[in-house]
């Protein structure tokens, strides 16, 4: 466990400063955490997290980079925003969870978390979005489940079939008209973010 010694060499940022800088949309107030536990108490999936969000913030402050990025906490965040509206210090908790997910993927730590498949789900999802401009549930379910839950696929197949019967799922994806325009925008955005 690597603890922040409290002294950061000049010109380098603390882990907390990195997380703050990587969170877009105004000051996320992360350094204001009072450790009150409102977030951990409010979280619907909190009982299944290996660290509560509050603990994670203390770990960020302590510079425990690896432990934070290996944690399943961000992947168990359901984006319900309960913590955000209840936080007495107005910390942008949900956005910070997104930041931590991105950092975990970039640095490859997520594979060691107990939610190792979650990024694949997200990646499969956006893959369809980038190729068609719209999401494609049948493709998403098939591809993701074939990869990770080949057995569970049988269970899912029942539901998928049901959805087809009820007319709630298409066999073919919908493609938007100006897909090239969208792809150009996304490509440019990736370049700007330095993640081409």
């Amino acid at each position, binding site marked *: 466990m690597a603890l922040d010694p409290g002294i950061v060499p000049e010109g380098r940022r603390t882990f907390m400063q990195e997380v703050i800088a*990587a969170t*877009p*949309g*105004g000051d996320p107030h992360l350094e204001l955490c009072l450790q009150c536990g409102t977030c951990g108490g409010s979280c*619907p*999936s909190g009982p*299944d997290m290996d660290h509560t969000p509050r603990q994670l913030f203390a770990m960020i402050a302590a510079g425990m980079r690896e432990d934070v990025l290996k944690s399943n906490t*961000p*992947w*168990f965040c*359901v*984006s*319900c*925003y*309960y913590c*955000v*509206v209840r936080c007495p210090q107005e910390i942008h908790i*949900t956005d910070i969870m*997104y*930041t931590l*997910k*991105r950092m975990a*993927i970039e640095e490859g730590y997520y594979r060691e978390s107990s939610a190792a*498949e*979650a*990024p694949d*789900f*997200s*990646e499969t*999802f*956006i893959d369809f*979005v980038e190729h068609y*401009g*719209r*999401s494609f*549930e049948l493709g998403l379910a098939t591809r*993701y489940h074939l990869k990770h839950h080949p057995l569970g696929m049988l269970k899912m197949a029942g*539901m998928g079939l*049901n*959805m087809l019967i*009820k*007319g*709630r*799922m*298409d066999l073919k994806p*919908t493609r*938007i*008209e100006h897909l090239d*325009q*969208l792809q*150009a*925008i*996304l*490509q*440019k*955005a*990736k370049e*700007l*973010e330095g*993640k081409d």
Partner: protein
Amino acid sequence: MPNRYAYYPGCSLEKNARAYHISTLYVAEKLGVALEEVPDWNCCGATEYFAIAALPAYALVARNLALAQGMDWNGGQRHLVAPCSACFLNLSKTDHYMADSPQLAAQVNEALAAGGLHYDPGAVFVHHLLDVIVDDVGYEKVQEMVTKPLFGLRVAPYYGCLVTRPDYKHIHNEPEHPFCLDDLLAALGATVIDYPVKTACCGGHMTQISEDTALELIRRLLKAAADYRADAIVALCPMCQLNLDGYQAQVNKHFGTDYHIPILYFTQVMGLAFGATPEEIGIGKEFVDARPVLNKIQEKPPEEGKKRRKKRRDKQALPMPELLRTHTGRK
């Protein structure tokens, strides 16, 4: 009420939530809400894109805002409406953060420029369908359209997360215990239960990440509805509807329960009260069949007698504080 809204249906309404789409169009027509689909809109990225990349995710959403901005508005105020809570959140969040952070706005616009587009933060006012109906149309107009009041139908108003939270534009200003859907359903003649988990989470995409976690979240919602003897849960988001409806059988299997609670979109319930046939508003597409509970709708309102008996207080009991309904709590 604005004379026209740009309509952003989102991927779900095209596919699994087609019933929501159909009933939205039905209700909009009845209420004189003019909807015009955003041309060539793309997916909002749901909760997935932000987890992989930040700027591309904001650019993805912003393309839709830019398209809406570019529609012909005749110089009028631009209003965009999304019936899906996740789409609503992503659209309003992108607009809000672009306004809040000039740096983000500049980068997003640089990306948009690669596609010949541009978005000015604040140019489009993003609404959820619920607030259009509650605030712009109003309860009175809704009530005028009711031809078959839903007397006797006990409904659980289920708001879920993303409409009420984080509410960047302070439309609802009530992230915890809202009443607007309650009041809307009451205006339709239904009996609205005091649903204690009305803003709890349906689990979102958790069904794909950790099924145990997701099923537990869904169970909590079903159990509370059953405890309060609700005939149906009324939802306003395709994700909530799919989780509660599509996974109900799995919840029953997993926990050994026996719930049969139909999950309807609020527009479907409105359509019913407006006299639509079930087919006109997509009833029949849900996994837990809604038709049996619709038989509970009565001709006459439930007797007033019950209420009065409840009001007469026990002599020993202490007075109860009044509930704060018009919410002005948070700063």
